[in-house]
């Protein structure tokens, strides 16, 4: 006989603790516990059996791993929080007694906790950190735009704005931006940093107010962590790009609302030779960059260039400026050809290939922002893709050129077109030379990876729909997919409509039609019947073309009606041999499939209806 096992001494009862137990163990307040959990990234767990984890009670509680809590118990931040509690008491006492000087000295020695070690613990490698900065960036950008009040201090807002500007500077400098999406919630950006897709959302430039049902303390705790995280990440990113961190801020420009332009990126010359370069080769690329590599990359670049140009049939990118920029990468005839080097283009080099092309999308162009467009947004986007951009003084200072500049090729304008009679010759001339496009053109071009035709986006035009560059889940409804197929369907529907018209017109045709239809319906099944039907149709005097059309139509119909219940009846019967678990899973999957299918068909049908309505309108005109 084995040892007797006591209840609650092993297993789930030991592995999990409830929140109240955890608080008791840590001897801190709930608020402190919450703060610790946020900072350390500890979250509740779902035990497999709640009853077993909670001493036989199945009351709704949140459980934590006992080990997580034990790990929290050694946390230096917890110690600091306790110290802070004592400090708060002391300060309150000093203030109550009116001992101002001691209160001041207490205030000076206020315990402050650092989160460096937590950053290192939560993100042991730099890649881990970069992978997880999405939420941090969203929060930083949100708080950068918040008005400061009693809960959100101005210094916090300022720091967030600084971090946001630093991130944008880095993305612009490294040309890391990949995708932009204008949504109803804000603007989604996606950048590729260290081969990680970083997506962040910036709200449109309106004053946001913190609603009352939001707990600001929680947000501020997260923000505390995010500020530290981003500080370290940016430090690493900047130093890897051999830039000085933090970038020096020009306060005069800042005051004149220069935005990102108030910061100046400085090359870090002093250390470039030693530590930084070593790091960059090891950690950034994950391999040593050799001369051979470089040459190979160049070769593949040149090989790819003509292809891409061919692909860009609409707007070939002017290559001359590109060449100027990348002078060090001018292909030179290599002295020795390496036959063994052909498989060398690594995944990395290949993946970077189209990006480098796309990230110089706007290099040949100079943009001018109309005053109703958002400057920070377009300044960031255009500069991240190598373009030059200027703006009127009403959007802030620091525009590199003014409106009269001859180099301006595009004007981003978001106003309806107004014909002005009193326009001067110069203005008219300018209008002729420049392209006046709506903001969506910029974003759509970026997402398409090439310069789109300006025509559908010119000022005052109804814009084509703006689609998400992130796509939808697999198998979802694709608004673009219909383009080819649609034509056929449309044609078919048109025909049917036409037929209807015919029917209305020629009554004598009717009998023939009926016969035809019956025949076709019968014919769709097997070839023998088809043949018989064909003969019949011929006898009725229907020409072969219409007959064939009819047949294909009925076949399509038959397919459609069959499709939903195409499940083999045998399989249907075999379902009863499934175990309960499998059956439930099967039913769940089937349910979700059906639901998705329904959604897709709904969208498709709606599109069809819309197109039909449009066509009718056009006809009516």
């Amino acid at each position, binding site marked *: 006989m084995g040892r007797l096992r006591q209840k609650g001494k092993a297993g789930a009862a030991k592995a999990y603790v409830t929140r109240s137990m955890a608080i008791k163990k840590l001897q801190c307040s709930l608020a402190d516990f919450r703060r610790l959990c946020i900072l350390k990234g500890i979250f509740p*767990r779902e035990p497999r059996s709640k009853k077993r984890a909670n001493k036989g009670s199945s009351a709704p509680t949140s459980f934590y791993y006992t080990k997580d809590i034990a790990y929290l118990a050694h946390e230096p931040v917890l110690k600091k929080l306790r110290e802070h509690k004592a400090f708060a008491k002391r300060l309150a006492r000093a203030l109550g007694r009116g001992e101002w000087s001691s209160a001041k*000295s207490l205030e*000076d020695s206020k315990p402050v906790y650092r989160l460096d070690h937590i950053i290192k613990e939560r993100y*042991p490698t730099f890649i881990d950190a970069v992978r997880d900065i999405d939420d941090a960036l969203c929060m930083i950008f949100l708080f950068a735009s918040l008005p400061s009040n009693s809960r959100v201090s101005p210094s916090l807002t300022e720091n967030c704005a600084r971090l946001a500007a630093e991130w944008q500077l880095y993305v612009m400098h490294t040309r890391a931006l990949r995708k932009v999406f204008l949504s109803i919630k804000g603007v989604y950006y996606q950048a590729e940093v260290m081969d990680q897709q970083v*997506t962040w959302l910036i709200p449109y430039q309106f004053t946001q107010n913190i609603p009352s049902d*939001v707990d600001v303390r929680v947000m501020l705790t997260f923000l505390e962590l995010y500020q530290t995280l981003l500080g370290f990440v940016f430090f690493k990113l900047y130093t890897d790009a051999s830039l000085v961190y933090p970038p020096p801020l020009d306060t005069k420009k800042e005051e004149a609302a220069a935005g990102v332009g108030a910061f100046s990126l400085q090359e870090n010359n002093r250390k470039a030779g030693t530590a930084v370069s070593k790091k960059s080769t090891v950690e950034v690329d994950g391999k040593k960059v050799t001369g051979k590599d470089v040459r190979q990359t160049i070769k593949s670049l040149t090989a790819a260039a003509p292809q891409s140009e061919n692909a860009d049939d609409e707007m070939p990118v002017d290559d001359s400026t590109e060449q100027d920029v990348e002078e060090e990468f001018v292909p030179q005839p290599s002295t020795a050809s390496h036959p063994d080097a052909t498989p060398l283009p690594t995944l990395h080099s290949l993946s970077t290939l189209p990006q480098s092309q796309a990230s110089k999308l706007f290099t040949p162009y100079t943009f001018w922002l109309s005053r109703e467009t958002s400057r920070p947004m377009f300044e960031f986007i255009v500069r991240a893709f190598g373009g030059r951009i200027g703006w009127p003084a009403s959007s802030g200072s620091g525009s590199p050129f003014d409106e009269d500049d001859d180099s301006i090729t595009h004007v981003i304008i978001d106003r309806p077109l107004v014909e002005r009679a009193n326009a001067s010759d110069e203005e008219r001339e300018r209008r002729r030379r420049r392209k006046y496009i709506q903001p969506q053109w910029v974003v759509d071009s970026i997402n398409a990876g090439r310069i789109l035709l300006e025509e559908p986006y010119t000022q005052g035009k109804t814009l084509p729909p703006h689609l998400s560059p992130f796509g939808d889940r697999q198998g979802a409804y694709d608004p673009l997919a219909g383009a080819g197929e649609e034509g056929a369907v449309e044609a078919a529907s048109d025909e049917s409509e036409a037929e209807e018209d015919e029917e209305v017109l020629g009554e004598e045709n009717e009998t023939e039609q009926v016969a035809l239809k019956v025949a076709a319906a019968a014919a769709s099944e097997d070839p023998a019947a088809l043949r018989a039907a064909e003969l019949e149709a011929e006898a009725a005097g229907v020409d072969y073309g219409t007959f064939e059309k009819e047949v294909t139509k009925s076949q399509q119909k038959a397919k459609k009606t069959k499709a939903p219940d195409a499940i083999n009846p045998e399989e249907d019967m075999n379902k009863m041999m499934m175990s309960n678990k499998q059956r439930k899973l099967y039913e769940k999957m089937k349910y979700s499939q059906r639901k998705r299918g329904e959604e897709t068909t709904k969208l498709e049908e709606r599109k069809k209806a819309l197109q039909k309505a449009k066509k009718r309108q056009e006809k009516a005109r």
Partner: protein
Amino acid sequence: MARGTGEKKRKQPVVEDSDHSDVEALPEGGMDMPSEEEGEDGVPGSDDDDDEVDEFPEIDARSDSDDVDTDEEEVEEDEDEDEDEDGSEEDDAESGTEDEEHHIFPQAKTVISKITGQPKKVYPEIEPDYDSDSSTEDAPNRVGNVPMHWYDDLPHVGYSIDGKKVLKPARGDELDKFLQTVDDPSAWTSAFDKNTQMDKPLTAEELDIIRRLQAHENPDASYDPYEPTIEWFTGKGKEEVMPLSAAPEPKRRWVPSKWEKQKVMKIVRAIRQGRILPAKPKTASSQQRFYAIWNEEPSSHAPPLPAPKPRLPTHNESYNPPEEYLPTEEERKEWEATDKEDRERDYLPQKYPSLRLVPAYDQFIQERFSRQLDLYLAPRIQRAKLNIDPNSLIPKLPSPSSLRPYPNYRSLNFRHTKGRVRCLSISPDGGWVVSADEEGIVSLWEVMVGREVKRWNMKEKVGGVEWCPRTDVSFFVVGTDEKLHFLVPPNLPSMVLAATQLLLAPPTLPPAPATPSPVKWSNPPSATTSDNKPILAIDLPQSSGIPKHITWHRKGDYFATVCEFHLTDSIPVSASGEGQGGVWIHQLSRRHSQAPFRKVKGSVQLVLFHPTKPQFFVATQRYVRVYNLAEQKLLKTLIPGIRWISSMDVHPSGDHLIVGGYDRKLCWFDLELSEKPYKIMRYYHSRAIRSLHFHPTYPLFASSSDDGSIQVFHARIYNDLMTDPLIVPLKILRGHEVKEGLGVLQVKWVPKQPWLVSAGADSSVAVWCN
């Protein structure tokens, strides 16, 4: 001193009673005036004032009780008015003397005589008018400083200097007192004097004392709290020149402290060694410093799992989505009507003609916040995403076409006139079917062609029909209410008929058993000649109900019946056979019936004989019990997990059992394996399962249900113990109608053929052929 006792306003009317006293009282205030004048005169530190402070009239605590006393006195006073008047006069005189006691005769001024040059005392002149001097008047009451309550019960308050009684002054009633307070403006500054038993107005000094006490000041008006200090030893010319002691001055007065130095040095050393940090500049510490935190090697700890990223936006979130994404009016309303938590999407797709018109998203902060709540409050579970085709979950079974033969169409339909066909049985040779309906019609017909050969009318509901499995004899048993009838089919070969008759109606009856059974076996006298009448009948005990289930042992000597109870009967339990579960085992050869169980737990639904072993299956409502008949003990209890067992059948091999229930479940038991089912098939019938039957030779079994369908399964059992039985659903046979919620009530296989015969509630019996 005596004047001090008194009460304020309340006793005022006492004075008012007589005109005299009123008149007399007024000058008294005037008499006090001189003392104030003296103060004004500037006589410093008059001791008299001090005296007066001491004499402040104490307010009698017993004033309330005095009230009653005074009222009594009033009555007395009214009786002798004369005396009262006298008393009042004397009172006046007394008050004069009293004043004299306290206000000493106007003090003399010390003046330097112009003549002699010596100081001399000059007294103020006395004007001899009416109220100039009180010294001439005596206080009438000479009682002295005694407690005045001694006189409470007496008409007088003391004695005058002449030894005459000083009578208490007359006192008015409450109304008088009140009027007095209204009339007399000084009423509120007067107090009751016990000595004279009347109200006396307070003097100005006394009022001043009251004011001072109320203001928390020193009651002594002459006390000056801000007296100038008088320098005695300090100041110019008053320094002490001579030392007070001759002790030499100690060293510590001029040598710096050693201990102080040590303490300071301790701090200095701590600062030098860096143990104490002097206050740093604040800006340096508050600013977060960033450094290359990822430069050193990462720890070997696996990084915590990153939080899942939020879903990327899809087309419908665009500010300018394709038009088909825009919600219709109904969708919009539905979205607005649903709760925030129940919404599939937290936004409605919207279309704006240009970017400039896109407003702020009002839920932005809420969404960020809810994301953060998710990050730190939501339990995270790692789930492997199943990216499989759901159809792959359906088990791959051999195709039914490869498992032929099995019945797949209805070959013929035999109709009863009316009434549900409850039961049917097929002869062991497989040629004949006997079916019985609820009207009591028992029909015998051929399987192949459906021709009815004979019909019996039992005139009451038939619960069960079963052929004897023996081939040398041919008969079947029909169970009606409390009776079992043995019927012999017509047109039997003579040999079989003779054997049957010999078996059922033997010329010599076997000896009766030792214990008499309540079940009676009887042969109707004419039975031997007629086919229409049962050849043998068994009378079950009174009110035992219809034998709803009859089952034969494979050898055909024994058969068992299960009776349905009439629960409404008031017959005692023992008589109805409820205790033994209504189960009877009948033995043909001995013409004897016995109840195998004395008492059964639960209501017995079905019983079955094991095909090879001496075992007996008893299905109660929830469990199936297996008994060994030879040893007469319980072997095992099977737990199918069915709420109410409706049907059961044992595989011809005897190792497997299927149990069906009214809750649409079918359980397959491997009897050698476990008490739990090997396989449970749920809900493949949409209604209750009614009947189950294994084919005696083919690997087939069928189940019928109230949904009007019959499900045919292939059930192959392998001799190899390691291989699980193979169960393949083959065919769903539909064709019976559902009537009043009842579908197919019984199915039976035709022996030696893969054919199925089913009896339905629509009063038809169908034969299904392959």
